[in-house]
Every structure is written in structure tokens, then in C-alpha cells.
């Protein structure tokens, strides 16, 4: 796992995580930053930063896979949606939206910690600032 030496000194401070090309689309890239593990996920729509804790039982969400999810549908009908916008916990398979950390379908109370990640030019920037999405 890559360790980032520079650490944001304040919640709202941004630091560079490196060139965008180092973050392949559709995978969780785990980094150690300031003694914590975070996961950076690049999608076709943007980039997201996750904490490494599933709100169910604290599973290592950064070892999960990026996927889509099955939408509610009629019997014998299968609807797959949100491809590449969901992460699945490796422990019990609960799924969470990358953009908000919320549980898909409200299956789990709470949310995966989601921090602020931005692409500026060809570089990825990160801060510990949390989104205020009450679950």
C-alpha cells in the first residue's frame, strides 16, 4: 500500500495524491495517509475518497470491489444499475454509493466515511473534509 508522507494539517487543507493516471478507473486504490487508510476510487464520472470502515461491522471497505447493484424489480426481471458507482464490502457484501457513502437501499444505518477528492488538471487532491449527508 502506498504511503503518502505529506498530511493535511487541517480538515479543509488539500494535499496532492499524485497524477490521475495512477488511479485506474473502477478500482479502489488504498493509500495510507496520516496513519489512516483511505480508498481513492476513480469512476467515469469523477473521483471519490472513502474511509476504510464499513458502517455495518467495521469491515475493510477499501478491500472491496467497485460494482453496480441490482435495482428493485418485478419477479423474473433483473435490473442492474449504477455500474461503477457502488462499492461492496468484502465482509458481508453490503453495498454503498461511492458518492455519498450511503447504504444502497438503506440496508445499513450510517454510511462509509466519504471525504473530499478533486481532480485539478491531471492531479488528484484530497482533504479530510466530510460531506454533511445525514443518514
Amino acid at each position, binding site marked *: 500500500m502506498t504511503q503518502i508522507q505529506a498530511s493535511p494539517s487541517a480538515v479543509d487543507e488539500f494535499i496532492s495524491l499524485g497524477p490521475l493516471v495512477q488511479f485506474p478507473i473502477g478500482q479502489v486504490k488504498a493509500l495510507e495517509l496520516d496513519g489512516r487508510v483511505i480508498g481513492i476510487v476513480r469512476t467515469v464520472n469523477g473521483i471519490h475518497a472513502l474511509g476504510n470502515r464499513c458502517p455495518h461491522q467495521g469491515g475493510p471497505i477499501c478491500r472491496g470491489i467497485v460494482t453496480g447493484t441490482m435495482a428493485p424489480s418485478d419477479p423474473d426481471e433483473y435490473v442492474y444499475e449504477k455500474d461503477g458507482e457502488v462499492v461492496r464490502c468484502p465482509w458481508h457484501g453490503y453495498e454503498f454509493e461511492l458518492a455519498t457513502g450511503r447504504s444502497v437501499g438503506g440496508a445499513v444505518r450510517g454510511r462509509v*466515511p466519504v471525504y473530499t477528492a478533486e481532480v485539478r488538471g491531471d492531479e488528484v487532491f484530497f482533504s479530510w473534509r466530510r460531506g454533511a449527508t445525514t443518514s
Partner: protein
Amino acid sequence: MRVRADQIDCTGSGMCELSVPEVFALDDAGLVIVRGDGTLAGADVNDQGTLVPVGMRAGVREAAAACPGGCISCHDEDGE
């Protein structure tokens, strides 16, 4: 014993608030706070956290152990 909670790691599961609502709550963003604002009777806060009344310490330890975010830390003071 003193307790602290780190919002950076908080998953907002609310396990702590369910366990010891006298000590923990969720703020408007759905993240943990320790009631050091006077809501916790006799709250004594310093840089190592909020002093937990004796009768609530076992509950606070359980809440820390159950927290999926691992964001609650307990600090025993001398003589405890």
C-alpha cells in the same frame, strides 16, 4: 476515564448513541459528538477528552468496542 470521538472516522451508525445516549449523540451531519456541552451532567472536558461519570464507564467501553468506525477512544486516568 475520559472519552474522545473522532469524526473523521465516524460512520454515523449511531451504535454509541443507542448504547449511552447520556454521553454520545449524532450532530446535524450525522456524526458522533461527545456531550461535553453541559448536557452531560458535570461534564469536565480537557484535551484528553470528556470525563465520564463512574456509572457510565462500562457502557462507554462497550460503545467504543462496538463502534464500527473505531472512532471512540477511552483514556484511563491514574487510579482507575
